[in-house]
């Protein structure tokens, strides 16, 4: 037997595997085996584990996401539990009151579901399709850029500034998202561009 069990396979052995293999192999009678088959396996033994980090503060504690369903197999994955990652050198499995409640962020009743649109003067948000939203935003932005772009300064020097539309980038996005965002904003010439580091 492979003794170098990962925690996950250990849970499997201890839970779901019991009825199917060990019980029979050890010579229990059929009645006991049938009884054992009814025992609900440990909840986490049937989940997929994914390594992640806490998105709040810059300690960046390691966490393990437990989901029903496996994204890598193309399945829908529903996160049912989040806990600290004991292998992580910084937090060694521990989490603070914020990190310990991370599942409540993922499942928050105020998680946004659909693109919404508020018309000028309106007192409510209304659903809008992604497609319509993208087209409308691209139009508004391009029109503003074309109308207010500063191509050169008074000395004729190309200065390439678009100062009438600004952007705040999110310091909880990944570096990869940040790089794509950087290319987008600086490529368009948006000069009013900052992130939370400023405040």
């Amino acid at each position: 037997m492979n003794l170098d069990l990962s925690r996950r396979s250990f849970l499997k052995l201890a839970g779901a595997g019991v009825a199917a293999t060990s019980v029979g192999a050890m010579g229990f009678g059929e009645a006991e085996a049938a009884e054992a088959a009814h025992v609900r396996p440990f909840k986490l033994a049937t989940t997929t584990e994914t390594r992640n980090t806490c998105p709040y503060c810059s300690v960046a504690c390691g966490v393990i996401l437990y989901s029903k369903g496996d994204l890598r197999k193309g399945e829908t994955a529903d996160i049912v539990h989040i806990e600290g990652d004991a292998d992580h050198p910084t937090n060694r499995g521990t989490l603070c009151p914020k990190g310990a409640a991370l599942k409540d962020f993922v499942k928050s009743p105020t998680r946004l579901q659909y693109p919404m649109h508020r018309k000028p003067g309106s007192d409510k948000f209304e659903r809008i399709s992604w497609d319509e939203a993208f087209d409308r935003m691209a139009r508004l932005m391009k029109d503003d850029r074309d109308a207010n772009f500063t191509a050169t300064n008074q000395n004729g020097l190309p200065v390439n500034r678009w100062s009438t539309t600004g952007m705040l980038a999110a310091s909880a996005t990944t570096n990869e998202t940040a790089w794509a965002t950087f290319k987008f904003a600086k490529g368009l010439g948006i000069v009013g561009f900052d992130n939370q580091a400023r405040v």
Partner: protein
Amino acid sequence: MTNAWTDIKNTDLVIVMGGNAAEAHPCGFKWVTEAKAHRGAKLIVVDPRYTRTASVADYYAPIRQGTDIAFLNGVMKYCIENNKVQWEYMRAFTNAAYIVKDGFAYKDGLFTGYDPEKRDYDRDSWDYVIGEDGFVTSDPTLQHPRCVWNLLKEHLAPYTPEMVERICGTPKDKFLKVAEMISECSTPTKTMTSMYALGWTQHSHGSQNIRAMAMLQLILGNIGVRGGGMNALRGHSNIQGLTDLGLMSHLLTGYLTMPSEKDTDFETYMSSRQFKPLVPGQTSYWQNYRKFMVSFQKAMWGDKARADNDWGFNYISKLDVPAYDVLRMFELMYQGKVNGYLCQGFNPVLAFPNRAKITEGLSKLKFLITMDPLETETARFWENHGDFNDVDTASIQTEVFQLPTTCFAEEEGSLTNSGRWLQWHWAGGTPPAEAKHDTYIIAQIFLRMRELYKKEGGAFPDPVLDLSWDYADPNEPTPEELAKEINGRALSDVMDPTDPTKVQVAAGKQVVNFSQLRDDGSTMCGCWIYSGNFNEQGNNMARRDNHDPDDTGAYLGWTFAWPLNRRTLYNRASADLQGKPWDPTRKIIEWDGTKWSGYDVPDISPTAKPGEVGPFIMNQEGTARLFTRGMMRDGPFPAHMEPFESPVANVFNPKMRGNPVSRVFETDAAQLGLSDEFPYAGTSYRLTEHFHYWTKHNRVNSALQPEFFVEISVELAEEKGIENGSWVRVWSKRGSIKAKAVVTKRIRPLICDGKPVHIVGVPLHWGFTGSAKKGFGPNSLAAFVGDANIDTPESKAFLVNIEPSTAPKDKELVS
């Protein structure tokens, strides 16, 4: 952070000042507990409040917010006068011996060259005497009256323990106890670490707060060593990453800087950035600037960045002001000069000072686009919530798009922690309903705009049309593709500089790290300091080897740290002039006669001889600066400055208000309050149960801390007739809020300049969306002024008044 969270266990003394790690960074603070339990380390907390960090400290000293420079200057003076200096380190590794130009002086709270009209200094005299050979002149004996060391001693002279008490309100005996404990770390075998956060940055002199501690650490020989360093505890999970990647108005990636209108062409731009060494034989790393810059430009515009167009230099905006920082943008918005705004995972209605002005600015926009996984007050700034958001909805003409994004658990990629580790994470859940990744949203807006430019033309379309967007699926670049771009690759064969017949990197291959970048267009690299993150070895940010040979806390096999997987910055300074560790029990690297090696990646060329190349290779001096020349707008030495709103006048110059060179917009100047009308010193802070304005959307955290409150002392409560748990109104010149009063002994009145100063504490986690009860934030009260160097708002020090009141009213529900 110069060091890592896991390195804190190596320290002998932790000073938490300008932060509250036990509450704001709890799992990082465990390394302090580790150092205390296993090394016998001590913990000092200096803070206006007796925080939870203070509750486990060995020594606590109170201080009035905004007076840290006076305190730290006092400690430096104490150390120098009591011979508590790591002399060998300080002499060899700082600019103490350099001679400063005649003319530089400090008087009445101001340095030479002040122009009150411009609110700026002429910084010409704030520099070294440069010899005819182009190198700096110095006096290694430290006898010369104009050497940095003697000027520093002169500058520190007024900061006696009595003066510290007068300014800071810290009783003299408490200050002296702290100074004495700190001074013990001047021996080569004792080390202090500084852990700070927004308690230092959110001041009009925030940069100088940090500088003062950095200077103290240099005098004590605590930079570059295990258990030492300047450790900025960054707020958000990737605020370090976004700064490194240059998502700021004045930056490009990797601390390359945006050109200004003075940089009329590429060569002019380069000439002020490739710093020549000021000491013979010194490595001045920025001499490689051109390689990083050209590779960055190639990453942005690919084949369209060519030698004959200066690599697309004119595609980059040239700034006409130091920065279009957030305060400037909201001022422009307030003046009606901004039409559109995108807020990606950002909630300015609660984050920026003078909320009334922020809301008014947003109301003048034509369109606002928000991208967030959660509801934000910003997306709903137009919605009336009675006292909690008292706006006239119908009159607000802003069109708003609220776009739902994925959260951390549904996306893949790297975040850079405070210790500069780029840690990869994987997606574990399916996003809710129609939520999309930020990269998808950004790509869609970009591609549709580019399509319009192709079809219609328009204002200078070239940088948009030519932007490199070379992804397998342009609609959604993958994290791996983007990470590889950040790392950089060879565009054509890169030859070995020592043997031009040999190919070092074949065309199309990832560079191993930034040492292979070129300035001839043969390489591209999104962000040079990150290079090495994803090379031909694979995704180094996903490495998970958590072995730590000899328990140094380095964890070199765990993910990837920038630069070059180095865990402790300036680690060359952990060894003496012969290359031997100052403290053999805390070796990081060592010189073996031919090369540097040890537990970390050396922060110096591996073959640079110890006596010949100084350790601070990012400075053209090779030494660290006790005197920072003209590089900071508000002075080469830190000097005491009051906050713009202060209960007491500046003792050095009673007419001086705040930082004399901070930018103040006209309407904001008129909205600064005085202490006769607003007698109490307000400050803002976080609680351990909440993270900013996110966790009020979580039921567990909302149950733990359900309701907004303000914290005041027993003495102030008595004076004002305020009962614990009763409603109060707190107001400044800019806004008014209502809260439950928490009357506490955690805050005590301080005696400053002979009069009592009461502090009002305002935590920052409440708004009008989410699961917690509706409330307010300190930004309704704080002033719209910022730091002189970086324009970070002064959110930690403002003036308020307080009175007993009644509950705030929500909007009446009509049925």
